[in-house]
């Protein structure tokens, strides 16, 4: 069974982080919320694996 990858997995972390913020630049709070929600759905579908998704949900909720 796969489990949530807790190790660094993004090659250029600073680049990714900057792209994430750039996607929200100049957006209203409502637009940003919508982008985030779509992003979560897109990524969740890409992962697909239910146990991994549930682990990710728990980690996010407990943080």
């Amino acid at each position, binding site marked *: 069974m796969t489990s949530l990858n807790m190790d660094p997995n993004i090659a250029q972390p600073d680049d990714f982080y900057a792209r994430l913020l750039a996607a929200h630049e100049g957006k209203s709070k409502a637009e940003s*919320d*919508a982008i985030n*929600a779509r992003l*979560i*759905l*897109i990524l969740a*579908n890409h992962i697909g694996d239910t146990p991994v998704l549930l682990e990710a949900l728990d980690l996010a909720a407990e943080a």
Partner: protein
Amino acid sequence: MFDDRYTLANKIYPYEKSPDQDLPDAVRHPVVIVGGGPIGVATALDLGQQGIPVLVLDDHEGIGMGSRAICFAKRCLEIADRYGCGEPMLDKGVVWNLGKVFHRDDKVFEFNLLPEQGHKYPAFINLQQPYFEEYMIDRLRHLQAEGAPIQLRGKNRVDAVAVKGDHVVLDVMTPDGAYQVEADWLVACDGASSPLRDMLGQDFTGKVFEDSFLIADIRLKGDVSFPTERWFWFEPSHGEGASMLLHKQPDDVWRVDFQIGWDVDRKHELKEKNIRRRLDAFLGGVEYDMVWSSIYTFQCKRMDSFRHGPVFFAGDAAHQVSPFGARGANSGMQDVDNLGWKLGLVIKGQAPDALLDSYSVERVHGADENILNSTRSTDFITPKSEISKIFRDAVLTLAGKARFARPLVNSGRLSVPCVYDGLPLNGPDRLTGGPARTRVGAPMVDAPVDGAWLLEKLGGEFQLLTIDADAPELLDVDGIPVRRVALSAVGNPELADRYLGDGPSAVYLMRPDQHVAARWDHYDPAAVRAALNTATARA
């Protein structure tokens, strides 16, 4: 005297004074059913077909006006078929397969139910509830004419009930005054606001959703028509509803549903000019007649137990769901299907009282599944919180572009029958590689056999379905007969696919409600006997 609480579409069982009313003592009936709605009438058909005397009491004299339910699902129609009234429903009903989903006027996607071949009944038909009820009452009259011991008394309102150990006493009001009726068993099918539930002090708990829906049934004038499809809009830009549904019914009638919010002035909204304002915003210049309109709010609730001694609750009296997914009448019919044979066996002395507890266990399981599904649809259609709306809108925005988001769009999950997985009446599942859809606890899946339909051969009694396997034609298991239905899957790929799976042969023990009690790959007398005793709570 008492007045009608609602207008009648069809005064089909007018009040007639019963001789019981003039007798000094209350007459004792084996079974009394309170409520002549679809569920009460279905119960009368089930028991009446078994030759068990039933008395139905209803506080009106016929079928209520207004369509209410319009979607009747396959399993519900199969049950009606077993009661001898499925075919007129299918003939009158509208069959649809294509659904379209819109968000702010743009079509997001469409889906096709892609019916599987080899079933007598389609996944769904649209039919006004009054027709559904009328065909059942026609059947009831037909059975009466054949001598079935069914009585249906209009304008007989139950005002009080007393449970006296092994029977109940009812106070019944009629236009000629009050009288009493006694019953060994009482089936309460008196609807969502069940007076009997209150009289017996039973709770009805769950969630109330803070929204209301305006329904308008309209008939288009002139040459305009819409295709026979289900159209659902989220946030239509005309602003006359947070969501809207358009669906076709027989007689060229269209159902339009507007989600209009919680704080509405019902009287105001139901004025024809206000309904027309909403309809016109959506229909533009189209002309139409108004057929029926209503405002409904909804809840997802159920009783803790559907049995209280000699009293059973069925249909909306026992459980209520939001209309999304059409699970109200559909699940009520499954209640009846479940209760009928159990009550029959207990009345005939062939099974112990404990069998009747399984009615509540199995149907609570079904109700929970329906409540879960309809709550989820409701949460999607009327999001409860800001974040739930954000995700809902994200799904809708993505669904237009990305296929993966489409299964997340929930405008009502269509009603499918529940499988009694893991419940006490189930016997062993010993068919190696057997198909999951016909596993123990599942309702039998239809298939074409010899120019007819499998389900037409099943039900009403315990049966042993043998597919390319040997077994005696008739078994007697301690007084309960089990008749064999022998079939071959040779040259019948549907039957093989639905019942054999990987193996060469199969033996299914079937309950009278067409659910699978146990299955094996060959006939074993001791195993069949044990499974039948488990399925009738005699083990």
